[in-house]
């Protein structure tokens, strides 16, 4: 078994088709991408416990209004079996997902480079699917802490390892199209919820009974299906022999002499000593914070900003909505979320592929400059009641949010070389963890403060948009400061050779 998983075992034989690697990576990313779609379980879980009359029992945090009261309710909910969970209690799973994803990728990225993608993919499958099974137990016994531990912590580790498992391999297989190759895999993470959410809805409607929402059975089924897919992906991985190139490949003229694309390699232990690493960390953190904050609030933002215009009753403000208006507005809001998701995933493959032609730094210049302009124009679009302009702007922003994720591995490979790119990418993903906290806090804090001050719904987000535009400008400056890595950080020939021996890259192809 150990030999089956070893890195020597997966060095490709001559004639191996490199186009088999992206679907293997997609198989893993499409499964772990379901992390984005977990909100589909919140509502069924919120009413999981019912009384003798068939009504949902009160939540553990019933009546809580302040953050402290809600947090206190969550503490009670962690082990209580006689009260229901709120969205606030369950929403912490998202925080756990993205914090653990970044931490796991940072901690075990170095191990992955030496152990190889197959072993990492298998561990990811065990963690993610095992986490779902533990969550199923948590739902069955109504123990919130088991949900957090299962999907949040153990599953989060699986997310981190699965996310970075194909990066290094794809960059080495596609030296001519680094952006496109990593874009294809990372598109899968964006698309995972698109498959997982409707799949989970189908399963829950199949399993539910008058006394059971069918969530634990759905977790078990999804764990089994995902495990098969992820195993297929892990065993589909092959790594190229060192220095492999596609037949007839010549460095493009734009690459020769381009100091922003190195032919050398920075060791993982040196990467964080370079200013380039921290500048890119800030770029990713700021681009992601702005995107996460807005994507997380997309549906209420559209409803509050445009009110009755969303269903041909422009005279009605959000605050005057009837129950029927709320249903109609929520449907349009859900449509907006769907549209943003589509732009998010197509942005991942589109922008990353485009960066192969344009260059990574100019691509990020585009993201951050255009993003700043679009955020700054959003209040104007809202004031002028330009719904199409508003929606269009946020679709472009969503595409650049996705593009930011998918282009960063190629940017790192260009600057730091390919030997440790997966592990360096893993460490950079801590920026995502930080953004997962910063973005929603900025957007939700300002929103709640404005609501408390009685600001009109259509202006609730104005200052948020200006702050996000400012964040993009800071990111733009950081990106402009990125220069080629200094020579002293590159590995010597002897260090590279020693590293390749440790990484088992000199074994015989099997």
């Amino acid at each position, binding site marked *: 078994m150990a030999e089956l998983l070893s890195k020597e075992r997966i060095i490709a034989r001559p004639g191996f088709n490199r186009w088999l690697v992206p679907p293997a990576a997609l198989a893993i990313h499409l499964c772990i991408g379901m992390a984005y779609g977990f909100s589909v379980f919140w509502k069924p879980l919120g009413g999981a416990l019912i009384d003798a009359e068939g009504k949902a029992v009160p939540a553990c945090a019933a009546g809580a209004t302040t953050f402290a009261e809600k947090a206190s309710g969550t503490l009670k909910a962690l082990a209580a079996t006689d009260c229901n969970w709120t969205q606030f209690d369950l929403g912490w799973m998202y925080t756990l997902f993205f914090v653990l994803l970044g931490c796991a990728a940072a901690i075990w990225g170095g191990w992955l480079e030496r152990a190889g993608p197959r072993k990492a993919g298998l561990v990811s499958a065990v963690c993610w699917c095992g986490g779902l099974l533990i969550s199923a137990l948590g739902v069955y016994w109504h123990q919130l802490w088991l949900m957090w531990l299962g999907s949040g912590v153990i599953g989060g580790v699986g997310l981190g390892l699965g996310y970075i498992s194909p990066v290094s391999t794809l960059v080495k297989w596609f030296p001519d199209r680094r952006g496109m190759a990593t874009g294809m895999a990372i598109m899968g993470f964006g698309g995972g919820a698109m498959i997982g959410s409707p799949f989970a809805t189908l399963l829950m409607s199949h399993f539910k009974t008058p006394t059971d929402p069918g969530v634990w059975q759905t977790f078990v089924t999804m764990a089994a299906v995902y495990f098969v897919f992820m195993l297929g992906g892990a065993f589909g991985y092959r790594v190229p022999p060192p220095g492999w190139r596609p037949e007839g490949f010549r460095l493009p003229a734009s690459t020769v002499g381009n100091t922003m694309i190195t032919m050398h390699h920075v060791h993982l232990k040196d990467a964080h000593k370079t200013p380039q690493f921290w500048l890119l960390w800030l770029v990713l953190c700021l681009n992601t914070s702005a995107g996460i904050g807005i994507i997380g609030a997309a549906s209420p933002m559209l409803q509050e900003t445009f009110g009755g215009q969303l269903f041909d009753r422009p005279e009605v403000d959000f605050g005057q909505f009837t129950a029927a208006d709320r249903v109609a507005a929520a449907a*349009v809001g859900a449509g907006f979320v769907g549209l943003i998701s589509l732009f998010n995933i197509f942005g991942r493959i589109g922008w990353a592929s485009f960066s192969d032609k344009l260059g990574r730094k100019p691509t990020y210049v585009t993201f951050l400059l255009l993003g700043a302009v679009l955020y700054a124009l959003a209040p104007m679009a809202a004031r002028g009641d330009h719904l199409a302009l508003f929606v269009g702007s946020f679709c472009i922003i969503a595409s650049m949010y996705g593009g930011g994720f998918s282009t960063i591995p190629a940017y790192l490979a260009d600057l730091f070389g390919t030997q440790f790119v997966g592990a360096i990418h893993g460490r950079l993903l801590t920026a995502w963890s930080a953004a997962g906290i910063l973005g929603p806090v900025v957007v939700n804090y300002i929103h709640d403060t404005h609501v408390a001050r009685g600001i009109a719904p259509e202006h609730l987000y104005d200052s948020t948009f200006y702050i996000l535009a400012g964040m993009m400008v800071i990111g733009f400056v950081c990106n402009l400061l990125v220069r080629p890595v200094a020579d002293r950080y590159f*590995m010597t020939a002897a260090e590279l050779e020693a590293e390749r021996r440790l990484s088992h890259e000199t074994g015989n192809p099997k």
Partner: protein
Amino acid sequence: MKQETRSRGSAHASGMESGPQWHPDPSSWPLVAVSWLLVGIPLLWGIYETFDRAKILLFGD
């Protein structure tokens, strides 16, 4: 202390050192097609489901 050269011209430390090159085996393409179908079909279904939800914003009721 021994100083090692870390110049950009160091041939062995380069990522572009000469390595093997090959064209894919022609018989591998059917497997490539099957692999892409296995991941592509669920992805297209997910995209269709999402587009179905987004239709209301693009085209109204």
